[in-house]
């Protein structure tokens, strides 16, 4: 397989070798200067001109092609140390057989002679191939003592009676059938079989060997169990401790609160009592002041009343009701009655006066009329006397009231 690989490599190199003359040009063009081709042409022309040997392409040590692409911005700058390639691993170097390499012509133009020769070679190859095909026999070679003869069976027509029944059978493996597993490779046995048997009690005595293991196991179990029991005991102790503490704490707390409460109550009670007492004192003081004030007032006002009474009496505010009654009512009534009576009297007098006047006037008239009638004069005298009397009476009566 190694040889095959090498062969492959060679063929690969051959094929690459064909491209080899081009290869330096292309990477060269790609890589460094970028104008190799025109330079080559120039050099060729220079060679033709100068006559000295000139290279088609100047030999130079080619730097390595980069195996991996550089960073995107890297292709502009060249890395400083130029590494020279190992000739052995350069893909552009032709390897292997160089006898029949198709080398590129020196010039770009193909030589017409070359072309003709190529064409003829090509034609000859074709002809050879055709001839070979024709002469290739399809039938196998005749056995010894026999000879192949071409026979034409046209005249002897036979009916193909015993036709063998042919059936077309197809067989197709499954599309993606897995490769069957490789059969187990059991190498051939080498060596000799030898058997041995360990009898009971030869290797070890179970009962003795198991003892230490058992001790360990049971010891550990008991240790662990003890640990757990201790853990639980510890927890239980802690809980009991806590319980007792809580008991005490609750009791003490209650006691503290009770005492607080008691203190508060007592204090409030004291406050209340003090308030009460102070109120009491206050009231007492008020009362005594009241009493003192009352006594003083009483004394002060003791002789107030008589003096008041006397001053009132003096100013006439007290009256005897009979007297007042007489004054207020009786006397005005009497006066009114007197007035009335007097008025009546006056009226009477007035009337009398008019009567008298009339009488007198009539008498006067009658008197004037000379003894027109004596009787009436008599009457009129009488009446005249009456009227005179009346007048006199009236005068006296009027004088009396005037005097009064």
């Amino acid at each position: 397989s190694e040889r095959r690989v090498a062969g492959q490599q060679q063929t690969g190199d051959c094929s690459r070798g064909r491209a080899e003359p081009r290869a330096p040009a292309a990477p060269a063009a790609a890589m460094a200067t970028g104008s190799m081709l025109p330079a080559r042409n120039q050099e060729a022309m220079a060679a033709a001109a100068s006559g000295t040997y000139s290279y088609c392409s100047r030999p130079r040590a080619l730097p390595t092609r980069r195996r991996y692409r550089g960073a995107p911005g890297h292709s502009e700058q060249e890395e400083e140390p130029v590494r020279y390639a190992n000739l052995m691993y350069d893909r552009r170097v032709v390897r292997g057989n160089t006898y029949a390499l198709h080398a590129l012509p020196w010039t770009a133009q193909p030589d017409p002679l070359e072309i003709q020769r190529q064409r003829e070679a090509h034609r000859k190859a074709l002809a050879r191939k055709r001839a070979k095909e024709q002469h290739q026999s399809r039938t196998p070679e005749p056995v010894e003592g026999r000879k192949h003869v071409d026979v034409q069976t046209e005249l002897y027509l036979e009916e193909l009676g015993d036709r063998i029944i042919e059936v077309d059978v197809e067989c197709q493996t499954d599309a993606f059938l897995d490769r069957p597993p490789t059969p187990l490779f059991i190498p051939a046995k080498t060596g000799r079989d030898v058997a041995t048997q360990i009898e009971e009690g030869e290797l070890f005595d179970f009962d003795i060997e198991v003892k230490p293991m058992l001790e360990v196991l049971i010891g550990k179990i008991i240790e662990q169990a003890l640990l757990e029991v201790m853990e639980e005991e510890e927890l239980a102790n802690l809980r009991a401790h806590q319980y007792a503490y809580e008991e005490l704490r609750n009791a003490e707390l209650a006691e503290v609160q009770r005492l607080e409460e008691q203190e508060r109550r007592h204090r409030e009670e004291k406050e209340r009592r003090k308030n009460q007492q102070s109120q009491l004192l206050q009231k007492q003081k008020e009362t005594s002041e009241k009493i003192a004030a009352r006594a003083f007032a009483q004394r002060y006002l003791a002789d107030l009343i008589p003096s008041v009474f006397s001053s009132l009496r003096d100013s006439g505010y007290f009256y005897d009701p009979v007297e007042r009654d007489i004054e207020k009512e009786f006397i005005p009534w009497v006066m009114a009655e007197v007035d009335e009576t007097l008025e009546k009297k006056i009226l009477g007098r007035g009337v009398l006066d008019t009567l008298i006047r009339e009488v007198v006037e009539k008498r006067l008239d009658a008197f004037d009329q000379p003894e027109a009638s004596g009787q009436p004069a008599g009457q009129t005298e009488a009446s005249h006397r009456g009227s005179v009397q009346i007048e006199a009476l009236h005068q006296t009566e009027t004088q009396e009231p005037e005097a009064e």
Partner: protein
Amino acid sequence: SCFLGSLSLALSESDSWGVFSEQRESIPQYRGMAHARISAKLPPDIDPTKAAIAFGERALPKLNEELQSPELLTRQRALMALCDLVHDPENVYQAIQLGFLDNLKYLLLDHDSTVREKTTEVLYIMASHNVGRDGFIKYGVIPALSQLLNDPVDICRRNMHRAFEIMAELPRGAVGIVDSSLISSLVLKLKTELDEIQELILDTLSGCLCIEAFEALATGAVSILKEKLTHPSVAIRSKAARVLLGISVPLEGKNIVWDEEVIPVLVSLLEDSDPEVRANAAGALMNATITTQGKYAALSADAIPPLLKLVDDETSKVRLNAIKALTMLSEAPEGRKTLLNHVDLFRGQLNDSSEAVSRAAKIAIKVIEWKP
């Protein structure tokens, strides 16, 4: 070797198999013939549910990595192995140093119920060690645990409440629980949870109430506890009475207890058959009767005769609380009048075995015979 196998299978029930097989690698000196090395390596299929524990120092780190694995089976096995390892406090310390608690917190919210159950169990076992409790507080495990309050699986909730209960026994842990504002949710859970879990909640609450009682009072804990006082289960009654004892320490608690008329119920509990119930009921009465209105409520509920009977009880806690309660009641004039006839009972307790009881009896006598 089959004997060994069966023995080891039997032993796999004990929690510590993994522990000692790992940590005690001592090779004992044995007398015997062959010099085969005794290896403590377990047979490979001893407990198929547990992960293989690495040797020595690598055990916990490897388990830590396995806990974070995306595969369910690996996580479950790692948790089973961890459950066994955390019985040892050294392992707990190391585990906390390695940062197990963060992984466990993350696993608490796993979909699989076995994972959650085992995680809560691990946390509960860790909490029973002091190192574990400190770690809980430092890493804030309590709020993470509280996310499981409504978990559908009973065992998860039970383990979670167990862990809370143990945390509440430590004052700092109780502070942690109070700070995570868990009290109101716990109080509300009392109404709906199973009995076993209710006991755990009640214990947690009585631990937390030492720190702060207002939140519980605000959630209406007193009325819930009043119902629990008449529960058929003895444990729940006694624990509920204990929580009431704690709740009636601040003044608001006392007022609410009087308001909700819990005092007559407590008086009826004084004649319960279980000494714990009696003791806690007497204690609750003792705290509730500090206020004047509490005193008169107790007197009207006729608390003195049963309390007098309890003064001679066998349990010292009952005696202590009964004497204290009577001391409270004797501060009221009516109580004093009644108790003046029973002073001899207290004199009998002056030489009691428990120092607290004798002190309480002395104080009681002093209060009863006090003249204003």
